[in-house]
């Protein structure tokens, strides 16, 4: 019997060892790749990631010394002070590491899904298009962190981030691409992707055609190609509307009004049931990407102690319901001595494609191409959902003045997106915009014994250094100054 058993075992050696452990598989079918695009690493940044560090670098924020930088991490103070080196060699660069990890998954899907089993050609193309859109979004982010703001004249020579197009864990040769090459790749990916994307994504965490179009519109705006952006934003709006179930703006007048769904206002976290407290609230998202923007999470860039600068606070009309996301009570339950506001209903900032931003992007490119009426309509569409309609209209003098209207739209971006990190990217692109030439940006650290003011050194500090860990691993790679 034993001998027989031995024979059997020897005979089926391959199948005996060929077992798939629980909770593991390799990607074979199109469905496998489809499920990879459901990876929450692509849309939910629970511990680190998103635009955390850039919240600290916008000019709408200041800091209170009693709370800021108290954790044993130097990253937040360095970012807040706009220092050149934010990451030393020994610093663990969680955010960028997560992003390059995402890029691995995206490249794997882009390069492998067309050869996968079982799925239809259309399904495969659609999944590939999603991955290409996300790759473009990542490259757009990197180019706008590590490359100079886009100027057609110099973009071909300005170094940006390496273009990573293969998924390989042992690759070891990376070269920085130019800003122009990066944008070319971004536009190529988006352009290829758009026709293959579905009008209706299964969930807002998946890429729809509108999301890719809005992203491309934003890319054009960041390149100063406002004329190209206008039709792209129109297509995006059309496609949002065409989707059976689509994003909509919350009307804060309703939700924060008596009996509103965001209520009650908690002393701990502001509007208790508002989208800022619920990472799963996808109502306003065309493409949802959300990160943990709350207090200290132990992973580097804590934004404890940040407050709205008095200047930024002054941009809000008193009736602006968005002010309900801020409190003047410090974490110790005492009113802030300087009356400054800290955000407490913004635990989960969003940085995918938000419907609110689409209105502002559309408004901006229309204003820039002198369609002032269209621009006003777009910006007011957002504003009337954020404050009583009576206060939502753009003052006539501004509505009639192109420059003033553009500046008003930019300010609206601050009001809508303070403490999300958006402002940093606006600072960069506006630095090459003659309309905003000469702007000086400062950060104030408020301290009872004397405030400290830091000034953003332009243009050098508008471009971040690539984290030293990445440079060290690539001898010969020249970092930004």
């Amino acid at each position: 019997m034993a001998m027989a058993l031995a024979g059997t075992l020897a005979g089926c050696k391959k199948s005996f060892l060929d077992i798939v452990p629980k909770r593991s598989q390799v990607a074979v079918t199109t469905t496998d790749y489809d499920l990879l695009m459901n990876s929450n690493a692509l849309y939910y940044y629970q511990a680190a990631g998103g635009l955390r560090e850039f919240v600290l670098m916008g000019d709408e924020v200041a800091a209170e010394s009693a709370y800021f930088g108290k954790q044993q991490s130097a990253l937040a103070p360095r970012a807040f002070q706009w220092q050149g080196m934010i990451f030393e060699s020994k610093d663990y660069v969680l955010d960028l590491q997560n992003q390059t990890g995402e890029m691995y998954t995206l490249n794997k899907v882009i390069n492998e899904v067309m050869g996968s089993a079982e799925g239809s050609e259309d399904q495969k193309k659609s999944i590939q298009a999603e991955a290409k859109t996300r790759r473009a979004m990542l490259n757009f982010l990197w180019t706008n962190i590590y490359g100079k703001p886009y100027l057609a004249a110099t973009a071909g020579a300005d170094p940006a981030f390496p273009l990573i197009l293969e998924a390989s864990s042992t690759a070891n040769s990376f070269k920085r691409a130019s800003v122009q090459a990066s944008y070319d790749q971004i536009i190529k990916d988006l352009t290829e992707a758009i026709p293959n994307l579905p009008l209706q994504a299964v969930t807002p965490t998946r890429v729809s055609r509108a999301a890719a179009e809005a992203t491309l519109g934003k890319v054009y705006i960041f390149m100063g190609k406002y004329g190209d952006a206008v039709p792209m934003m129109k297509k995006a709006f059309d496609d949002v509307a065409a989707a059976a179930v689509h994003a909509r703006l919350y009307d804060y007048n309703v939700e924060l009004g008596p009996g509103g769904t965001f209520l009650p206002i908690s002393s701990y976290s502001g509007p208790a049931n508002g989208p800022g407290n619920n990472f799963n609230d996808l109502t306003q998202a065309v493409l949802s990407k959300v990160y943990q923007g709350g207090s200290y999470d132990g992973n580097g860039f804590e934004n404890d102690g940040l407050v709205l600068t008095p200047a930024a606070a002054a941009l809000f009309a008193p009736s602006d319901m968005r002010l309900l996301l801020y409190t003047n009570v410090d974490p110790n339950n005492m009113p802030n001595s300087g009356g400054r506001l800290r955000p407490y209903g913004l635990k989960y900032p969003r940085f995918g494609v938000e419907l609110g931003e689409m209105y502002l992007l559309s408004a901006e490119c229309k204003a820039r191409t002198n369609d002032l009426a269209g621009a006003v309509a777009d910006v007011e569409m957002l504003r009337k959902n954020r404050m009583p309609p009576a206060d939502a209209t753009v003052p006539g003098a501004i509505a009639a003045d192109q420059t003033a209207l553009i500046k008003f739209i930019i300010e609206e971006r601050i009001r809508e997106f303070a403490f999300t990190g958006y402002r940093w990217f606006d600072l960069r692109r506006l630095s090459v915009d003659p309309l905003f030439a000469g702007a000086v940006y400062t950060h104030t650290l408020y301290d009872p014994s004397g405030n400290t003011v830091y000034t953003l050194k332009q243009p050098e500090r508008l471009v971040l250094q690539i984290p030293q860990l990445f440079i060290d691993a690539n001898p010969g790679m020249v970092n930004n100054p």
Partner: protein
Amino acid sequence: MLFSAFCNPFRVKRGVLTKTLLVMRLTSILLLSTCLHLSANSRAQKITLSEHHSSLEKVFREIKRQTGYLFVYRDEWLRETDKVDIDVKESPLDEVLSLCFDNQPFTYLVIDKMIVLKQKPTAVVTLALQPWDIEAPPGLIDVHGRVTDEKGNPISGATVIVQGNKATAEYISRLRAAGVPAAEPAARDANGYPVATVPAPVVASTGAPVAVVDQPAPHLAIASGEPAAVPAPLAKAFAVEISDANGDFFLHGVADNATLVISSVGYETQEIKLNKRKEIAVRLKIKVTELKNIEVTYSNGYQVLSKERATGSYSKPDMEAFKQRVSSQDLMTRLDGLVAGMTVFTGPSGTLANENGNGKKTQSALIRGASSIQLSREPLYVLNGVPVKDFSDINPDDVGDITVLKDAAAAAIWGAQAANGVVVVVTKSGKRDSRIKVNYSGYINYQGKPDFSRASTLNSRQYIQAAKETFDPVYNDYSYLYNSYMAPHEVILYNQYRGLITDAQANASLDSLASINNLDQIKNLWYRNAFTTNHTISMSGGGSIYSFYGSFSYTDIHSNTPGEKSNAYRLNFTQDLSPTRNIKISLSTNLNNTITSNKRAPQVSNLFLPYQLFKDAQGHSLTMNYLTGWSDSLRRDYQARSRVNLDYNPIDEMNYGHTRTNNLGINITANANIRLWKGLSFLGTYSFSKQPGIYDSYDDHRALENRKQLVSLTVAPTAADVPVYLFPTNGGSYLHSTNDQKDWTVRNQLTYIANPRQGRDDLSLQAGQEARQSLSTRNSISLEGYDEALQTYAILDYATLSQGYYNTVTGYGGYYSSPFDAQENETRFTSYFALANYTFDHKYSIDLSWRQDHSNLFGSDQSSQDRPIWSFGAKWQLARENFMKAVTWVNDLGLRATYGITGNSPYVGPATSYDVLGPLNSYPPPTSGPGLNINDYANRTLNWETTRTLNIGIDFALLRGRLGGGVEYYHKNSVDLIGSVKRNPFTGQSTGTGNIGNVINRGIELSLRSINVQVKDFTWSTNFTLGWNKNKLVSYTSPSPYSLTDYGKLYTNHWIGYSLNPVFAYKWAGLDNLGDPQVMLADKTITKKPNAVKVDDVIYKGTSTPVVYGGLSNNFTYKSFNLAVNITYNLGYVKRDINSVITYGRMTATSGWGGNLSADFANRWKKPGDEKITNIPSYVSDGYINYSRRSLNYYSYADINVYNASYAKVRDITLGYNLPHSILRAVRVEGVNLYVQAANFMVWKANKLGIDPEFGRSVIASNHPLSIGANVSF
């Protein structure tokens, strides 16, 4: 049954040999002989002989000349023989011999190169009279005696020689007259058949037996396979008797004043004067060294090798010390210091828990230094030939034999898992042809209560003093602390500061706190005396075809935590069956059940606030509401709104929850050995084990954590609102978890054993195939609102609860536990292996092994595993060479050398050829719905870890075995170490798994056994083991940027050029005038600036793994008393004494059972100038200043806090007593051994800090465990 052999006095050529040596030689030769094939066929020698009417002696001489074969006989036998006529040409020896003996009253046996003559069996005689029917003449008596060992076990086959019995001849003739064949009665075996009575060969001083034809030989009997030793004063001897299976012997008609000389193999010879006694009891003492020299065998799990011919590095512990070490039930702990080259990591930090989560634990061990960085460094554990996860299921009383395999030749047969060495355990089995024996062993091991003194903390007075000194109400503004934990003394200080109470009131309150000491209450309420009791009853016995060993044991572990129970029941039954000569089957079955339970006793130690009592003077338990972590006002607010009582009373709390585990283990191992043809056999090993376990945990809703959970999920904006509970208010939290471990092994092998060159050589070949599977599973269900009695539970809205609520009483609440969790881990191996052993001329041996393993590394290419593992070994038994014969003080000397490779297979994951995907955690529910992540990235460049080992050793036995031992040198080069390698971070991974480098272990091991004193009633013997290991990381992958910082170097467990587990430290440069720690950099500058220290400024202090380690056991036996003292030592290593001095922030900021500080805090820097007298940094309340002005790590990780951890300890000391035989006879008990044992006495330690390096500053559960035990055999 009686065996006897009478003979005439005979002559011995004296002077050549000492008597003892003779005994030993004879014995070993006979053992050897009986192991060989006693068949007389196929002798290849050709003989040409032409003799006419010659004496047999002459013929023998001629055959000897031609063949070299020796003849063994008694010369008087030949006198009665006929003359021989023989004429043969080129005839085989067998044929010639049968011609010679055709008409002679002999047959013959060919043993080795000896031809032993044997009288032809006479017909069975029906006796008219039994010997005892005949009355003995005056002055002569009939004697009945019984030979036993010291424990009262019968010794069969012992030789009893009667001296000074001249009158017996006449008596014999009377016996003869009565029909009793007394002159030369044939000895009979157990079945009544006559057995051979053969003369023993005379032996030259060393080496192979040389029987000389013309020389009369001493007389020796072989009965039922048990060789009898012929003792010394043979010349005077008259009669020889052999004790039977029960140890009984009968002597007829011996002089009543005769002296009996009783001897047996492995025992001390004893002389007893009869003095007219007819009943005598003989208790023989074990001859320790000689027994070992003869009987030591090594089991590697695949074959059993004699020590003499084994080429590899095998070690066996002193099993007596192992058995006696009852202070632990853990097998590995019991081996501490007993095996040269194996370190057992004792103490709490060395505990290894089963991954399966069934709570089974063992102590971690390291054989010959660490040879891996990322993979396991644990040896492979093998039980009865089958790898197991750990030895936790075995009762140490059932262990029969332990062998530790250290080098490639010994371990390589275990293939890809053997690089860390192998520990092979074989459990007891019954002896064949032995009567049924019952044995009881039991002990109680008393550990008492823990000793807090090693982790000394501030007493109440010091504590209050320190609290006053460090109180900083400006930096720690009261308003910031409104919802924080605040200890009672802090409340007083803040009340004083805020003007709520006067200074006098505050001081009075603080003084009263300072006068309270809660240590007694802690010891009495939260601890109890710990003890372990163990009882084992075993039974063994056997007949000619069946034997068994069975045991039942019960272990009760009464830990020092109140409310804890742990009971283990083990049943073990091993059977051996040989239905025919060619089939042997053994079956080992094992059943064990461990049941534990505990309540919710908090782990309170002297680290808790020293003034907080748990009961007041009236014995009422006290509430400690500040331990909820909330301020009084906040807690009252929460309580009012939620209407949930938020008092905290730790004594009541203890009964609000409990945990129960019930683990079952079933293990069946069968071995079959079927002889197929001549030396060819089939061996099969089949093992199955299953270990289902249940873990149940319940915490009532009254438990504080559950009340806090409820409050955090209660919506009640004001106290007037009716609270809305989003969480169950009744029942409790229930966790039900089941785990299972299922393993099986199937091994089929063929073995071929032969003795080429007419038996002068030994050959053994084996080849086989093995398949193994190990499957561990674990499922758990977590319910809330569970009612234990009704078994009902609440249905929760998990999706909503996991997103959290922001409007609850505490501001925010959520519930994140997963209702269901499952884990499964399966590994499979298929392997092919082969072994070859050859011994030439009993002097030169070689061993070869080869093995190929394939495992189910998911996602990897099977061909990447085609890395066979092999070894080669050779041994030269030098003492058997002729030129060594003259060196009489050397009894054994062997040289051996081995080389080979062993592997360390990676776990599933790192070696995948494809990206391995895994599911998103299903909890909290992902927004997108189910999805996949990449868990392991494709990595096609990984090799298995391989260790190449060279081993050179010498074995020796000197001075008639009084001194024996071995020395070994090894060189282990482990290449392709698997570990974390730096990836180019642009790839998406900062690190990946790769082959990172190689580490070399070199070492010397020494083991010595000696009998220092051996006089009449007193023996002193010593066992000494020593291991020296030099470990060095030779090459390593390019380090990560982090590891090139001071922190990276301080926290690493490897550094190129140094041994693994290096300890690096800052060079201390004292405190500055602010009490800030300063360090000296490599360029001699002194700094305190954070981040100023670079990687090269951090200096090497040594390794944290012992470099020299081992044990020293001394055994003293005086009459019935035995004293054993076992010392273990670890030398040449260092440890870091991380002194947890808090030097910033609030002194009592931690809630829970902390709050107190190391006693050193009282000695901190307080004022300028203190830097001259202390190294303990100053206290700074402002965390930012602390962090920006200085680095406390410069103190904690300074070289002054690294100490030499060398120590030697009496691991245990045991005093035993064997009850006298006279008492035992009366109660019909064979042996009773009583002992007491005490453990853990520091003999010497290198550090002057008073630290026990085994425990560091942690609390010691028991300083000196004390045991009392008994072994009784029936």
